[in-house]
């Protein structure tokens, strides 16, 4: 499946628009990571545990979106957008959305 965040796919023509597809996931950090993060707040720098957590969560949201696109019979998702929001203290929602389309190579 082709995934892009532009409205068009270079070299492909969009034959059919299947509609909006979306995927989300809400993740909470766990205690061990919170503890390390608290220490890190004293000296600054990257919070690697959280970065990994969010990368994994965003991938899952994307996969859910792709599963929906497949269900609709699309072979590509265009104009993908990501958003993150804090739901409650210590839990983040990752949300991915885009438009499922049927794309064919041009020429």
């Amino acid at each position: 499946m082709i995934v892009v965040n532009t409205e068009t796919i270079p070299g492909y023509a969009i034959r059919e628009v299947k509609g909006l597809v979306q995927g989300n996931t809400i993740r909470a950090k766990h205690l061990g990571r919170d503890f390390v993060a608290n220490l890190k707040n004293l000296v600054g720098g990257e919070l690697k545990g959280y970065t990994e957590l969010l990368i994994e969560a965003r991938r899952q949201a994307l996969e859910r979106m792709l599963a929906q696109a497949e269900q609709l019979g699309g072979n590509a998702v265009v104009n993908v957008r990501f958003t993150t929001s804090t739901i409650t203290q210590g839990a983040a929602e990752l949300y991915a959305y885009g438009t499922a389309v049927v794309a064919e190579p041009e020429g």
Partner: protein
Amino acid sequence: MGLQFWIQILPFVVLIILGFSIGGFVERAHSRQLKVREEAVRDVMVTDLRTFPVGCETASIGLVTGEVVIASDYFKTFAAGLRKMIGGDLRTYETLMERARREALVRMMESAKAMGANHVANVRLASSNIGSGGAGGRRSHRAAMVEVYAYGTAVFVPSTNRASS
């Protein structure tokens, strides 16, 4: 104003010195490392245009992302806290966000390079506050914790078409 006062204020002073020295060291080390990595991915062109350069190859198209969660140190948090009272630029946080954005962009460019692309179009940058501090701690003392992420569409542009784009 006796010994008791100094005992009460000591942990606070220690934390600020710790934050200033180690935090400063971490920041300088990160900046140096970023410079080297930015140099390594210089051949990857990044634009936020929605169009692609002419003649890009259609076989290798894909979404690339780069993300980082970054925290401020105790000194930065304290300095920003003071600044908030009188208003103005929170200079300590500005450098923090600048480093986080650069890091997210470099990671995105690195993953574009890893998949054999040399051009990233329609790049979007976003950031979100992911709940300051962990459990416990007073709200006013909690350090900033920010997630910055960058994403775009990676393609490969043959060098013969590079100049014309």
